[in-house]
């Protein structure tokens, strides 16, 4: 595996996201970069993962991923099953069979709670965004959740302004007390890969990306994550992964 000589930030994020998926797992995929990461995993180290799209699509093999997110028929191509929400989010996810939920986010906090509903502006007015879709359902019922988002101090806060999808809530067993198992396992940004401390459930840096520094990572967060003594560098994408993204998964560069 040759490391790619040049790659875009989103390609490194997709590769880091793909790495979180193990072969054979069932993956519920949300809107945005998670789609690229899931198809990258399937095209490389995890050919036997089953990709689910919430609206009722199982294991598609698209020729291109399209621009309209999950509602774009390009992403339904060659699926094994065309079904429904009740089938996907009900009989697979709510039933407890989804190994990994893969979500994009607008804002996330120290305990992995995700906001995709609204953001406040400096004038105290709120702007509405997408809301939940299947995001809340996936974060509530998947065995673990991986999230991909921009590394931006306005989006990485001690507490989110609106909990759309629950992480560990305020820590201290608050999530499991509600009967929710699972929870966030990784947050992949354009500067670092973060995880969660098994005890406190607070966010913890796992690795920082090449060409960035710990200072840069911390300066662009609005809370203090746990910083381990030994801090590895995130593995960059391989040449083959970059080729797969550019030539096979997103040939029209919709995500570039």
């Amino acid at each position, binding site marked *: 595996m040759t490391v790619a000589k040049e790659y875009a930030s989103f390609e490194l994020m997709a590769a880091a996201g793909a790495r979180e998926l193990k072969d054979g797992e069932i993956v519920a995929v949300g*809107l945005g970069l998670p789609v690229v990461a899931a198809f990258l995993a399937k095209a490389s180290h995890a050919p036997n993962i089953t990709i689910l*799209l*919430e*609206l*009722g*699509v199982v294991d598609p093999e698209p*020729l291109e991923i399209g*621009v*309209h*997110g*999950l*509602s*774009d*028929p*390009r992403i*339904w*191509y060659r*699926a094994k099953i*065309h*079904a*429904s*929400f*009740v089938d996907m*989010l*009900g009989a697979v*996810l*709510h039933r407890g069979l989804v190994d990994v939920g893969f979500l994009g986010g607008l804002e996330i906090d120290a305990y992995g709670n995700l906001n*995709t*509903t609204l953001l406040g502006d400096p004038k105290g*007015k*709120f*702007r*509405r*965004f*997408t*809301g*939940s*879709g*299947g*995001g*809340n*359902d996936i974060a*509530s*019922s998947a065995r673990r959740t991986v999230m991909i988002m921009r590394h931006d101090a306005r989006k990485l806060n001690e507490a989110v302004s*609106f*909990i*759309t*999808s*629950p992480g560990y*809530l305020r820590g201290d067993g*608050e*999530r499991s007390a*509600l*009967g*929710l198992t699972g929870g966030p396992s990784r947050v992949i940004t354009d500067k670092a890969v973060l995880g969660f401390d098994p005890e406190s459930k607070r966010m913890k840096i796992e690795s920082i990306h090449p060409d960035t520094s710990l200072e840069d990572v911390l300066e662009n967060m609005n809370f203090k994550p746990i910083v381990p003594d030994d801090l590895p560098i995130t593995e960059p994408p391989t040449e083959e992964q970059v080729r797969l993204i550019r030539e096979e998964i997103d040939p029209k560069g*919709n995500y570039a």
Partner: protein
Amino acid sequence: MTKVTTLSEAVASIPQGAHVALSGFATARCAMAFAHEVIRQDLKELTVSQCVGAMDADILAGAGVLSRIIYGGGSRGRTGQHFCLNRAIEQGTIIAEEYSSLSMAFRYLAGSLGLPFIPIRSLQGSDILKHVQEVAPDTTGTITDPFTGDDWLVLKPLSPDVAVVQVQVADEEGNAQILGPRWENEEQVKASKRTIVITERLVSTEMIRREPDRTLVSGFRVSHVVQLPFAAHPSSVFQAYDFDEAHIDLYAKASKTAEGFQTYLDQYVYGVKDHWEYLEKVGGMQHLNSLIADPLLGY
């Protein structure tokens, strides 16, 4: 008995203030021709429900038709937010009862099965639940599982007055087939008091009987059948036509402001007499022909 009628008669059967479940998902199988006619007939105070916000709900919200939306959030993917819906919610002109995709699907499912409530794991610990408890306090509750003693969040069923479902194929009785993923359309139809079917193609009942495993909507649930081509334009209909990217971009830009949206309405909804004139306006047969789906790809 034939239920085939005109779009204008089907829309005229809906009273002011009704709860209408719409079949769209973001930019797919949106009941656009239906929504345009609702706007032209000046229906008011409607409640609209669907799992994921779609272009049919957005245009109704922009035109001031809605007083309430019951949905699970949603956007047009990379072409942006549902600006009309978001603006109306931010300005408080419509009340948003906002859940998640599965909670909406479960509410329809409970309605379709005639159940009094349905337990769900979703929403717990979230601000979505807190918000719903404020704007619609009678739709959630808790119950103790009599078998295990566990506590569960429960949701109230949804029973819309009418489901409006955009399909590919139906017969004159309303037996209808949906090709491709069907999101929550089957549960919407089964939970609603009656259904209006908008179909791209009208076929004989004999054709329905040849592929009965594809039939999702039973004729006995249907009050009106309307056949119109490209009735979901600019959204897509799997195996019939692709979305119209240029027109969706035009809609996205126009709907960013209330003024821009009004211009869009004046041009494409109020400025045309009916769906046929709309199809001419958006480019006519030559343009629409370029959207027809490749049967292998489905788009």
